Structure formats: structure tokens, C-alpha cells
């Protein structure tokens, strides 16, 4: 572990020395040069002072292996026998100070971006390029008492290009897209990202966020009464 920390410290320093070009683009993230080793110290410190894994609260209710942001050598997919594994950054180090959530990476990426804690590039050859943002909100009415779905283009265009979704995933036209929760859970439509990379489906309210009005509920129940027509 110490070996790992020291090698990363060396690599971080190298990255900074090389003008942020080595090992990603550390220089672009607003972290002054001197910070790199300190972050590592924080991460290792937190590891040492936390409660021991054997005595966590509600021990039996915890899913096995669900410890968040675990280091690569223990994550079950990286090979600890590979010498490179020990050199990889730990997610817990990278995420220090980011707004948290309860699922996915345990990071609220939208808030993290909005707060300027990360500054991801929009163009490969132009670190200063700004993304093309579009503020268009789509509300999708759904059956039952479940709140309607609110889809904000704005947050999505912070990350994505229009062509990422249109029209291979969504046709930009009313009534042209059949979306079901089953499909999403199985990785289609919204589920191409949500459930794989973007926040997963564990809190309905993140998308089903607009409660129905009394009038809407009445109309929806009328639509079901075909027998009366």
C-alpha cells in the first residue's frame, strides 16, 4: 500500500512536471501541484481511522462486496498479480470532496461539474472549448399515480452531444419513442447510460419528479374507461 502511494506520488509529480500531459490531464483539474501527495495522505488516513469492516452497523443487511469506491486491487476485476494494478488511482482518492449520492459511483456528477470540482474537456484539441448547451425540458406523462418524468436537455448537453442520442437512441419527435422501465432496466433507451455509467435506477424520484395535478389524475382515469364510450 505504501509502495502504491509512493509510486502514485511519483507519478503525480511526473504528471505535473510534464505540464499535466502525463497520466491524464491532471493539470486541467483545478488542483495545484502541491496537492497531489496530500490527497493520497487523506485517502489513506480515512482508511485507517474508519470503523473496522467486521463491525459495521446492520452487518447482516449489507450486500457482500458493496463497499463503495474500493481500490482496484480488491475490486474483483483487476488482477492484483498485475504490477500495473498497484499504480492505478483509487476511486476514493479521485472522489474526495465531490458531492455524494447513494448509488453508482456515489458521486453526484452533475453537481460536481456545476461546482467546478472537475473541468472535463469538450474538445480533444481545445481544452477551453465550451459545450453546446440546450435548455429544453421534456415532460413525459405516465400512467397511474406515479409522478411524470422530467427530462432536462440542459444537464445532458453538459456531457453529451446531440448526435449521441439523436436519432440512434431517441427520435426527436413527439410520440416516436416507446420507453418502458423494463427496457431501461435491461439497458435500452435511458438504460444505455443509466444503469451502466450514469446514475442507476434506484430512486424513482430522480426522473419521476413531477407530481400529477388532480385534473391530470382525473383525465387519466377517464381515458381508461373505454367501456363507457
Amino acid at each position, binding site marked *: 500500500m505504501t509502495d502504491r502511494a509512493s509510486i502514485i506520488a511519483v507519478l503525480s509529480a511526473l504528471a505535473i512536471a510534464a505540464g499535466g500531459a502525463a497520466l491524464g490531464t491532471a493539470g486541467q483539474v483545478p488542483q495545484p501541484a502541491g496537492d497531489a501527495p496530500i490527497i493520497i495522505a487523506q485517502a489513506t488516513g480515512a482508511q485507517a481511522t474508519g470503523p473496522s469492516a467486521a463491525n459495521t452497523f446492520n452487518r447482516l443487511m449489507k450486500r457482500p462486496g458493496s463497499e463503495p469506491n474500493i481500490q482496484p486491487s480488491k475490486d474483483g476485476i483487476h488482477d492484483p498479480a498485475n504490477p500495473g494494478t498497484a499504480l492505478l488511482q483509487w476511486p476514493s482518492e479521485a472522489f474526495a470532496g465531490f458531492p455524494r449520492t447513494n*448509488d453508482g459511483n456515489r458521486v453526484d456528477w452533475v453537481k460536481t461539474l456545476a461546482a467546478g470540482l472537475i473541468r472535463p474537456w469538450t474538445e480533444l484539441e481545445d481544452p477551453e472549448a465550451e459545450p453546446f448547451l440546450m435548455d429544453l425540458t421534456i415532460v413525459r406523462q405516465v400512467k397511474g399515480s406515479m409522478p411524470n418524468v422530467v427530462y432536462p436537455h440542459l444537464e445532458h448537453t453538459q456531457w453529451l452531444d446531440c448526435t449521441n442520442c439523436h436519432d440512434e437512441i431517441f427520435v426527436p419527435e413527439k410520440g416516436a419513442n416507446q420507453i418502458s422501465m423494463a427496457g431501461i432496466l435491461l439497458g435500452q433507451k435511458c438504460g444505455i447510460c443509466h444503469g451502466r455509467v450514469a446514475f442507476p435506477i434506484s430512486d424513482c424520484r430522480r426522473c419521476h419528479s413531477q407530481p400529477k395535478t388532480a385534473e391530470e389524475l382525473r383525465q387519466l382515469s377517464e381515458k381508461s374507461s373505454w367501456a363507457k364510450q
Partner: protein
Amino acid sequence: MRASKRRSLALGIMGLLFVALSVGTWFASSDDAAAEYGDVIINNYSDDAAMRPVIFPHWFHRIRFRCKVCHADLGFRFKAGGNDINMLKIFDGEYCGACHNGRIAWGVENCVLCHSGKPNMKTGVHNSTSDRLVAPVGR
């Protein structure tokens, strides 16, 4: 006594159901539930070439680049293993090679940083919802 027997029977049936559902994806090691969300295992060719599979950490890259850069400009499809990447393409500056060339990010001489996965793992986004649905973690 009888109630508890019935309960264990029901549990047993559910367990069997889950096992049946998960057999199809029971390929990777059973403790991969700890993998960081969004990590992609790419093993199209690695096993056959006696290389460790590549693990692509989405989280690391999204800190540095918006999704658009790779998925629109570089042409990465939204499908694990769906880009048919091999070293020829990387040498030629396509896909990973667009950055991992010693200019924007470190180059291909750091084999061990990408080829870092356990052998014989299935290509896919690990810890994805659809994966967990087919092979529930509560098993």
C-alpha cells in the same frame, strides 16, 4: 415449524430461480460486485493473445473528458466491446490511441496500466443494472 419449513421451501425455490437466471452470466468471478460502477471489461481479443483483459475506468475518464469527446468525436459506440478495438487501431491513433499516444495522455508502452484485468472475464460494463438483474447480488 411447518411455517418455517414452507418458508425455507419458498426461499429454496426462489434461490433456484435466481441461480437459473444467473447461470447465463456466471462467467466472471463471483466477487466482481465490488467493481467500480461503470468500469468496462474489454476482452474481445485479450485472452486469445495471452494478454490480461483491458479495464476501462469510466469514472477516471469522465473527470477529464465529457462523454461527447469519446462517444461523438472519437466514435466509441455505447456498447462494451462494440468497437472491436485492437492494437492496430490504437497504433493508428483511433479509439484509445487518439489520446494514449504520449501527447495527450501516456502512450502504449505502459501496457500494464490498461491490460490489468483478471483473465477469462466476460466483456461488459460491470456492476451494471442489467447484469445485476440477470444475476442478482443477493444470491
